[in-house]
């Protein structure tokens, strides 16, 4: 199992990567235009951020696999990279999960899901601030 991997890595340094690099570069440019165009449409709700993150992950995968050569390098390097991604998911996932399941008063005032201050009428945030600034 280890033998063919080591062999690939050895020959990889002697082969020109230019066609792959050019292809990845063009793909990255196209995906940049796509993500920009999709953002201009303003997809509803969570779709916008989901699509943006999927495209960004796709671009990131292209960079990591081909520019950074994880595609033709040893398992250990891939393992290190994937492990870091697991912790990225844990950290962001748990922080969001924590705040999404909190008692409303535990969230900062003015935020989504927080209760309005005592006796206050719930208004759109923008209007609230403008009132306060008036003399």
């Amino acid at each position, binding site marked *: 199992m280890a033998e063919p991997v080591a062999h690939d890595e050895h020959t990889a340094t002697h082969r020109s990567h230019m066609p792959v690099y050019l292809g990845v570069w063009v793909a990255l440019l196209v995906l940049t235009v796509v993500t920009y165009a999709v953002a201009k449409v303003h997809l509803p709700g969570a779709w916008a951020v989901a699509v943006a993150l999927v495209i*960004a992950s796709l671009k990131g995968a292209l960079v990591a696999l081909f520019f950074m050569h994880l595609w033709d390098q040893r398992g250990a390097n891939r393992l290190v990279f994937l492990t870091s991604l697991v912790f990225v998911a844990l950290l962001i996932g748990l922080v969001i999960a924590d705040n999404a399941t909190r008692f409303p008063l535990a969230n900062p005032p003015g935020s989504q899901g927080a209760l309005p201050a005592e006796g206050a009428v719930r208004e759109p945030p923008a209007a609230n601030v403008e009132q306060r600034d008036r003399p």
Partner: protein
Amino acid sequence: MHASPLAHHFENLEKQAHAARLGMWLFLATEILLFTVLFAAYALYRFLFPEAFALSSRALETWVGFVNTVVLVTSSFTVATGLNFAARGDGRKTGLWFGISVLLAIVFLGFKAYEYSHHFHTGQLPGRFYTFEGVKAPGAPMYFTLYFLITGLHGIHVVIGMTVLVVIGVLARKGRYTAAYHVPVELGALYWHLVDLIWIFVFPLIYLI
């Protein structure tokens, strides 16, 4: 003086190269987690203040972020090209392509400086320094706190990456590396690709809400 690049505690160059790459990947993993802390803070406050984040993001000039993404992606390509020449033992071309990459990085920082000065003039600043008239909502100052933290840390990484590219580009030009041994070129390129990788996520999260 041309000492062998092989350190005495390694059996051969190939094993030394593997160890160096693994060490670099471990370092890059810590870099990813460093940025993840900021992205987690971003995720939290975007979750708490979705309206303010969308409005603040639309107050930015999206085309600058777009152009900078194109510039950085292209610089990653030119660095990869430089590495390709290093693998063939053509140090002069490696120096040339790394030089082009550094110029692209300067363009990137130029656009960033233009943006920052715009933010300073319009009061799009973190925390209590926030005086921007365009978006008045709780959470907007937090957006700009995270904006400056994330793009600032990324900017520092761009400067470090440029320094690495300049040093390695000059050494490559001087013929320090060969087709058999060019691990420093490879590791410098890895660092630059990471800077690009981070920006690929910064662009949609900061500019495209």
